[in-house]
C-alpha cells in the first residue's frame, strides 16, 4: 500500500434512453507520491471520465479508486478527507465563478472544509496566491480581469490551498496560448517538487505530456492500450495506436519534411464498440485474430504494459 493512488478495473457506463455509452472499460493503474502519470488519447477515449471518477465527481459503475488508503466514496462525502484529492479543470475561462473575486475563489475550500471565515483564511489565501506567482493585489480582482494564464494560476492556487495529496489535472493548458503553457507546466512541476504531490495529468497534447509526465498511459475507447515510462513510450512506441498517434503530431522543425500516411478512419462511438480489439478498424496490422480476441493489458518488460495480441512478446519490433 505504498501507492498514493490505486485504480482497479474502473468501469463507467452512461445510460441515456436505450443507448449505453461505455466511457471507461476496465482501467487500472497506480500513482506514487510525487509522481505524474499522464492519460493521453483522443476525444472519446475516456480520459476525462476517468479523471472525474478519480476526483470523486462521479461514481463508477464498478471498480475501485483509493487515495492514500481511503476509498473515493468516503473522500467525496467526508469533509475531513475531501482535501486529499483536488482538480484543475480545462477551460480557463469557466474555471472560476465570474461573480466572485479571487480571494473568495481561492479561499473557498478553507471556508467549506474548515469552516473558516474569509478574514481568518487571508494569510493562507495570500500564501497560496504567492505560490502560483500572483501577488496579493490579485485578491480583489474578478475573473474577467484575468488573462487565461492568470485564471489557471488562480485555479491551481484553489486546488492547492487545502494541501491535497493528489491533484487531477484535466487538460490544464489546453485553453492557453503556447507561450503561457510552458510557464504553467513549469509551475506545476515546481509545486510537485516542493510538496511531493501526485498528479494525474489528462491531455491530448503530446508535447505537454513529454514535458511533465513520469509515466504515460495511452487510452483508446475506454481502455489503456499501452502504459510505461514517458521516455520509453516516446522513443519506442509499441502499440500500433501509440505509433499512429505520435506520427500524427506535426514536427516543429520545418527542416524535417513531414510526410506520413495518416492513421485511417475515425474513432468509433463509445456506444457501439467493435468486438475483439476495439482498435482493429483503424489498425494497420490487424488480422482475423483481432476480431475475436479482446487483448489484455499485459506486461512487456518490467516497466511497461501493452494490449495487443501481436506485440505481446517482449523484445524489439
Amino acid at each position: 500500500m505504498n501507492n498514493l493512488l490505486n485504480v482497479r478495473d474502473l468501469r463507467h457506463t452512461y445510460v441515456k434512453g436505450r443507448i449505453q455509452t461505455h466511457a471507461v472499460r476496465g482501467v487500472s493503474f497506480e500513482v506514487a507520491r510525487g509522481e505524474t502519470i499522464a492519460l493521453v488519447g483522443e476525444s472519446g477515449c475516456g480520459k476525462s471520465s476517468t479523471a472525474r471518477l478519480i476526483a470523486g465527481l462521479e461514481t463508477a459503475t464498478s471498480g475501485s479508486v483509493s487515495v492514500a488508503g481511503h476509498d473515493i466514496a468516503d473522500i467525496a462525502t467526508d469533509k475531513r478527507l475531501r482535501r486529499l484529492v483536488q482538480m484543475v479543470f480545462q477551460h480557463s475561462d469557466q474555471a472560476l465563478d465570474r461573480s466572485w473575486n479571487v480571494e473568495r475563489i481561492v479561499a473557498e475550500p478553507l471556508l467549506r472544509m474548515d469552516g473558516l471565515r474569509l478574514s481568518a483564511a487571508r494569510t493562507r489565501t495570500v500564501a497560496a496566491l504567492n505560490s502560483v506567482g500572483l501577488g496579493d493585489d490579485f485578491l480583489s480582482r474578478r475573473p474577467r480581469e484575468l488573462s487565461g494564464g492568470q485564471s489557471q494560476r488562480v485555479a491551481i492556487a484553489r486546488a492547492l490551498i487545502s494541501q491535497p495529496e493528489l491533484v487531477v489535472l484535466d487538460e490544464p493548458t489546453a485553453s492557453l496560448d503556447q507561450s503561457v503553457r510552458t510557464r504553467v507546466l513549469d509551475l506545476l512541476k515546481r509545486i510537485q517538487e516542493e510538496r511531493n504531490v501526485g498528479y494525474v495529468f489528462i491531455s491530448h497534447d503530446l508535447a505537454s505530456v513529454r514535458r511533465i509526465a513520469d509515466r504515460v498511459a495511452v487510452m483508446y475507447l475506454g481502455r489503456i492500450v499501452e502504459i510505461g515510462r514517458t521516455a520509453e513510450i516516446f522513443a519506442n512506441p509499441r502499440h500500433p495506436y501509440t505509433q499512429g498517434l505520435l506520427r500524427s503530431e506535426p514536427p516543429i522543425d520545418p527542416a524535417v519534411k513531414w510526410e506520413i500516411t495518416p492513421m485511417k478512419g475515425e474513432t468509433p462511438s463509445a456506444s457501439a464498440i467493435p468486438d475483439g480489439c476495439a482498435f482493429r478498424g483503424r489498425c494497420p496490422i490487424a488480422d482475423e485474430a483481432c476480431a475475436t480476441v479482446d487483448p489484455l493489458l499485459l506486461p512487456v518488460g518490467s516497466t511497461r504494459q501493452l494490449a495487443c495480441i501481436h506485440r505481446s512478446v517482449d523484445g524489439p519490433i
Partner: protein
Amino acid sequence: MSSIHLATRAASRKRFRLTVVRQNSALITGIVLLFALVLLGAFGPLFLPSPNVTAPGQSLMAPDSEHLFGTDRYGRDVLARSVAAIRLDLMLAVGVAIMAMALGSILGAVAGYIGGWVDDVVMRITDALLAFPGFVLALMIVAFLGHEIIFVAIGVTIGSTPHFVRLARARALSERELDYIPASKLAGANRGRVIFGHILPNAISAPLIQTTVTAGWAILDIAGLSFLGIGIQPPTAEWGTMIAEGYSDILTGKWWPALFPGLLMLLAVLSFQLIGDGLSRRNSL
C-alpha cells in the same frame, strides 16, 4: 488626401455613434418614461382633486381647462383618477413581478441543478401551468379565491411564475456544465452552497431583465381582470376598472373616461417593455 480621409472617418464615426444611441435609446426612453410616471404618481395627487369625490351636476364633461381629462359619469375628475391609479397599478405590478421572479428563479435553479425527480416534478407542474396563458391562470385563481386585491396579486404572481422557472432552469442547466461548479464541489460546497452561492448569482441576470417585462404584463393582466369585473372593484381608481366604467359611455360618443386611463396604462407598460428590451440588448452586446 489625408484631410479628406480624416473627414470621412469622422463622419462615419459620428454615424456609428448615432446608431449606438439609437440602440440604447429604448432603454433611455423607458427609464425617462417610468421616472416621469413615478413622479406623477407620487406628487400628482397633491395638486389634483380627490379621485373619489363625485359631483352629480358635472357628469361626463368634456376635457377643458378645469378638468384636463374631463369628468366621468359621476362627475369625478378623470385626470385625478388616472393619476391616483398609477400608484396602485405600478406598486401592484412591480410587487407581483418581483415575487414571481424570486419564486420562479429559486425553483428553476434548484430544479435545473439537482435534476432527477425534483426537476421532473417542478417541470411537470410548470408545463401544466404554462398550458395556460398567465392571464387565464390568474383569472381562474381569482375566480376561485374571491375578488380582492390580494387574490389578484396572488393570481397574477402564479400566472407569471412559470416563465421564470423556465428561464432560471435553462440558465442553471448551462451553468451546471461549467468547470467552476465541480471545482466548488471539490472545495467541499454542498448542494445548497452551490445553488445559492454559485448557480443563482450567475443565472439571475436573465430573470432580472424578464422582471421588468413581466411588470408590464402584470399591469395588463391586473387591468384585464378588473375590466372583466373580477379584479379590483369600483370605486377604487384603477385603470382597468375605469376603462370598464367608460365602456358604455364611449358608445354614446363620450370617449374621454376610457381613453385617458388607457393611454397612461399604455405608457406604463411601454416603459417597462422598453427598459426590458434595452437591458437585454445591453446584456447581449
